[in-house]
């Protein structure tokens, strides 16, 4: 059975490495994109089942990426988990129309929370 693939969009390579490690231990496959442009290419290449998305990215913000994803029928349905230092400032209801299902606060989350978040949206 094919393992679900999680695309981690995160400009901090070391944090992405931690998230990937935890997700792989939980039985998921992972792919990594350091910025929005790479993320769009990765979405086309690997067809992720979930996108774990940081908000403050190099170049464009996550919202530019979310808009791009929503422009297409196939990418608009990919569940998004925002993982951000700005969690306190973002309301889930405001970003739900962009496909965001969960918001994780980088400052308070436990490493396993990424697994719980991914399970809850799959």
């Amino acid at each position, binding site marked *: 059975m094919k393992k679900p693939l999680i695309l981690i969009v995160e*400009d*901090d*390579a*070391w*944090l992405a490495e*931690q998230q990937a*490690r*935890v997700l792989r231990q939980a039985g998921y496959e992972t792919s990594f994109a*350091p*910025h929005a*442009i790479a993320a769009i290419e990765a979405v086309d290449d690997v067809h992720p089942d979930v996108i774990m998305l940081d*908000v*403050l*990215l*190099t*170049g*464009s*913000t996550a*919202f530019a990426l979310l808009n791009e994803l929503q422009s297409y029928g196939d990418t608009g349905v990919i569940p998004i988990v925002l993982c951000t*230092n*700005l969690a306190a*400032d973002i309301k889930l209801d405001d970003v739900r129309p962009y496909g965001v299902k969960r918001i994780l606060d*980088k*400052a308070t*989350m*436990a*490493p396993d929370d990424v697994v719980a978040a991914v399970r809850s949206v799959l």
Partner: protein
Amino acid sequence: MSAKREAHEQLGGGLLEGNIPSLVAAAHELKSPLALMRQLSLMLEAGDLSVMESQRMLRQISLTSERALRLTSDLTRSARLDDAMFNLEPINPQQLCEDIVHELTPLFNAYGRDVRLLPRRHPLLLVANRDLLRRIIMNFSDNALHYANSNAAIEIQIKALNDGQTIRLGVRDYGPALSSDMWRTLQGKLTSAPQSVHARPQSSGLGLYISSQFADAMHGKIGITRHRDGATFYVDLSASHQLSLL
């Protein structure tokens, strides 16, 4: 009062006198390394890691804390620029940049990257404060480490401009081309006080603003050159004429 001066008041005074946007910018810049160190610590605490993985994480914590400490040190230095007397002296930029490369190499290597100084045939001397100039180049290099492509080295360059009257120290990164919007935003960040992350979501621009202040204190200026495959952040300073006396 000049715009730069006003901006300086906002940051320098702000940190001491309760300027909220500056404090928010500083807090935001420090939140990322703190959050990373917390995640790494929690992973270590949970155990179930190989010795090699544990060692790698401990190294990452140590290097991340050093980066965060550099920022706090720059902030306090920046807030006290008016109070301090800065000695401007003739400095060999080649030697200074070699020291910086030596200091940054462990951090870059830990990210699987390389930082190098492009060699110069003829020696140059500039007038600067060694500590402030070092902080500017470290800031630019940190910025490049964060934004450049993972497979390309960061290059520190030293050039003479204006018939040798000006010395330019630049940090060249190879990464995604800056969009026109991003370019305009960055130009603004060179001289504007950092703003709330709500106003400028991608970055507070704090590091650039601090570098701008340090350059100002040495009668220099910082700038950005946009390339199709990245950017060069530079500081221009006056050349020292002592070399011509030798």
